[in-house]
């Protein structure tokens, strides 16, 4: 047997490799650097890796090939856009993560133990969150460009495992945070198992694990359709779990609430881009010709997800839980882009993912600032009167909420318009109607928060808005600016996406 040396296109893989290298350096820093210098060096390495990765991506933005890594990575326009979105969102999120007030002093200590108290007194910091984030980002970068199912699974695990840990790092309400992490892990492991099962069925169906190989089998129609159906169904379970679509959403409110807010923002935004990137690639590349097998089910899931997320969000009293249900509703809207199964559907999805991701990071950034003596204040009732005390912060949060609600002159509106029109163009009238109605429902709870902030008198219970650190300010400012600019003049980005976004097989 002859051994073939793998040929890798390093330029196209560079964005991922740089992030991985950054993560490894981060691990070394944890091991060898003195405690005092860890935080600054970690922050520097992380940002440097992300910016360098973005620059490397920029170099190869016009290339496309199926052979970036022996057929395991498909490097194409859509992949570039997904990766760029993930990196931009990650940079914004890192600024929030850098505010270490949110994180436990010593992750390994038992909540309430002497060890924990000592760690707090010694002012220890969880600098390991930086390499963890980088590992997750590397997985996210790989996820939407993976073009065989094994690579896809590896990427899925690579992005998930660090996130499970990161969810448990909260400084306050640590038990809740750890419960969230455990819940996320158990359910995530379950979803991964489904995903693997799906891979097995698809292999049984097509005799291939590459997306293009499966596509050929689908077009050829020679395989056993039962295997195809089971494979699509199981793989969808794994993917829909990651984006939090109903009925695989049960983890998200608890995890959103329990995880440190900066991590929640990162997870909500970046994971969605990565997971939807993978979903779009699989369904557009492999299963497009089998649309009659999966589309009706996907339409039903999308509609249930939109309506459920919007309706349940109304009853939420905690801002992070509310945003969790809102993100479920948005997952439903984004599924409209998958169902559209057209070039305009792909473009709309990419725009929507970017716009939503940036606004989400910004919104969670603001959540980190509203605190009392025992940490962040999640209870919405205690947000009342915020507009009086800090008009700028409340206005910015209102802007993000209006973007989530899809009000014109915000990025959310352009996203909603383009994704619904793509879905309707491909014949899904029911998606359009359900989408519009659930948007109307969703408007109710977004506006309720605005009412609370601006039209209710404040309660004197020690809730206050802390002065944000410079990095947090940058994140919130940039997110708000992007949300507004993409709402008023989105043409450059839309044109760029339109010329770039393609999947190669």
């Amino acid at each position, binding site marked *: 047997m002859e051994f073939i040396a793998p040929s890798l296109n390093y330029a196209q893989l560079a964005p991922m490799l740089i992030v991985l290298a950054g993560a490894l350096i981060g691990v070394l820093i944890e091991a060898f650097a003195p405690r005092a210098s860890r935080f600054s060096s970690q922050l520097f390495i992380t940002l440097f890796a992300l910016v360098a990765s973005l620059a490397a991506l920029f170099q190869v933005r016009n290339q496309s090939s199926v052979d970036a890594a022996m057929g395991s990575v498909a490097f194409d326009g859509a992949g570039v856009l997904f990766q760029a979105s993930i990196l931009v969102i990650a940079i914004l999120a890192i600024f929030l993560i850098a505010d270490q007030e949110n994180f436990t002093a010593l992750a390994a200590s038992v909540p309430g133990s002497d060890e924990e108290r000592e760690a707090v007194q010694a002012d220890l910091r969880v600098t390991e969150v930086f390499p963890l984030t980088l590992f997750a980002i590397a997985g996210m970068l790989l996820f939407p460009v993976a073009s065989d199912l094994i690579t896809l699974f590896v990427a899925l695990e690579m992005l998930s495992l660090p996130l499970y840990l990161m969810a448990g790092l909260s400084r306050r309400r640590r038990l809740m945070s750890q419960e969230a992490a455990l819940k996320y892990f158990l359910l995530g492991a379950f979803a991964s198992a489904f995903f693997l099962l799906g891979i097995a069925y698809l292999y049984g169906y097509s005799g291939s694990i590459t997306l293009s190989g499966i596509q050929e089998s689908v077009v050829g129609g020679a395989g056993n359709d039962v295997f195809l159906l089971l494979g699509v169904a199981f793989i969808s379970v794994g993917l829909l779990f990651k984006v939090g679509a109903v009925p695989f959403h049960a983890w998200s409110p608890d995890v959103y609430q329990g995880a440190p807010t900066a991590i929640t923002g990162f997870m909500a935004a970046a994971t969605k881009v990565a997971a939807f990137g993978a979903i779009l690639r699989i369904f557009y590349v492999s299963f497009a010709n089998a649309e009659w097998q999966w589309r009706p089910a996907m339409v039903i899931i999308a509609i249930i997800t939109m309506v459920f997320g919007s309706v349940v969000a109304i009853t939420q009293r905690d801002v992070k839980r509310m945003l969790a249900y809102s993100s479920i509703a948005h997952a439903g809207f984004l599924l409209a882009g998958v169902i559209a199964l057209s070039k305009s559907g792909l473009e709309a999805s990419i725009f929507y993912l970017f716009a939503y991701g940036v606004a989400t990071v910004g919104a969670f950034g603001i959540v980190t600032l509203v605190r009392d003596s025992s940490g962040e204040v999640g209870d919405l009732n205690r947000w009342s009167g915020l507009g009086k005390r800090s008009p700028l912060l409340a206005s910015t949060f209102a802007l993000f909420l209006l973007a989530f609600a899809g*009000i014109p002159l915000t990025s959310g509106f352009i996203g909603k*318009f383009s994704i619904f029109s793509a879905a309707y163009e491909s014949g899904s009238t029911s998606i359009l109607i359900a989408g*519009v109605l659930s948007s109307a429902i969703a408007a*109710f709870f977004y*506006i309720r928060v605005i009412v609370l902030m601006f039209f209710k008198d404040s309660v004197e219970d020690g809730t206050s808005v802390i002065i944000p650190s410079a990095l947090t300010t940058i994140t919130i400012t940039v997110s708000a600016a992007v949300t507004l600019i993409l709402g008023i003049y989105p043409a450059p980005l*839309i044109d760029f996406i339109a010329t770039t976004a393609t999947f190669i097989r």
Partner: protein
Amino acid sequence: MNALTTMMLLPILGSLLIAVIPSDQVLRIKQAALAVTLLVAVTGVLTWFNFDSADTAFQFVQSVEWIPSFGINYAVGVDGLSLVLILMSVLLTPIVVLAGWNESEGGRWSAKVFYILILVLETMMIGVFAATDVFLFYVIFEAMLIPVYFLIGGYGSGDRAAAAVKFLLYSLFGGLLMLASIIGLYVISGANGGHTFDIAKLSEMHNYMSSTTQNLLFLGFFIAFAIKAPLWPLHTWLPGAAASGTPGTSVLLLGVLDKVGTFGMIRFCLTLFPDASRTFTPVIITLAVISIIYGAFLAIGATDIKRLIAYTSISHFGFITMGIFAMTTQGHSGSTLYMFNHGFSTAALFIVAGWMASRRGSSKIADFGGLQRVTPVMAWSFFIAGMSSLALPGLSSFVSEFLVLVGTFTRYPVAAVIATFGIVLAALYILIPVQKALHGPTTPGNENLPDLNIREKVAIAPVMAVIIALGFYPAPLLNVINPTSAHILEVQGFTDPLPSDSAGK
């Protein structure tokens, strides 16, 4: 530079100017707001004189690419219909600023925010009528809810937050239905000659729709406009919003924003979906007649003077809607003129009622009495405004109400006859408060109410002048309106019923 764009830019620049004036220089802020709105009004009048009324095409046209890949343009232009409404808007705004000089006091936020909101709203009021691109129209239609929402909720009285939310949710719901229809139109245009939002091109799309599609798309637009206008049974948001807002806000809300509903019925419902308009005409005429009578009865029973004015408006909007869907040139011209006149008579009523309420500290009709003796100028102003509202011959509303009834009678005699009772009821709902509030013995507590000061006289005088002048000589407006009305009906294939039917016998 394009006249319309200039008019839209001026208030925005004005709001920036106000933003840099320190908040404590309230007088300076008010003067700046007044100066800017007067400047816009002058520009509006100049535009009026430059308008060629014989030309039925859009004039002062400007079109700039906005989001080219969706076929969206910043496109503005006016015909007789929109010019009349723009003129009304820009004339009313300085009057509102001057009449409500002290309205911003007692609000949640500073006077600065109040005037910034007013100026931003003015830009949008001009834009919403000037837009000839359906997408641009929709964006402004939705975005203008936000300043109004904050004006009612932040500066109103009574249960202002609840009223503001009800207004916003109602409007958003309608807006989202319209969005679904707009997406429908967009997709249909894509299949028939390329994506566009140009109203002229879209007005040919009804040739490519099935009648079911056309009916559904029509309903999306119509329900949004019927909420805005407001037509029974979608009117329930109006009384609360009008009663809670400051008098100035209510003038803009009832006088201008609600006109977007009736304007939209002509510009979009009739132009884009002529067949569906015909199909639904019987239903709409019925609803309009119910609005006329029902609004009048509610007004007769009202005990609060602001609510009374809101209810009279429901009745008046019934007349306008009836005139539009009668599909005769007289009905259309009458409705357009009615929109203009209603703007001024409602403005007069609301402004004077606002002065009465702020002097007395109550807006209950029962709290007034004998004002004629104490404050003769204010009482006479209210009286004339009331007479205009009940369409007394010699005052402006008479001409338009007469035209609407005549125009309706030629096609729907029964509806016209029933609607005529609305005039009788109008006498009741105006004369009862006039009698209770202005005549009779002076109610204790009212003896020392001050009469109008110079500023207030200056503010109300132009409104009175317009009401009386147009009552005697409506030709300047009708000369502009008539060609447009005839043109709109002609293009969509509506013809006036031949009078020879009765004349020949």
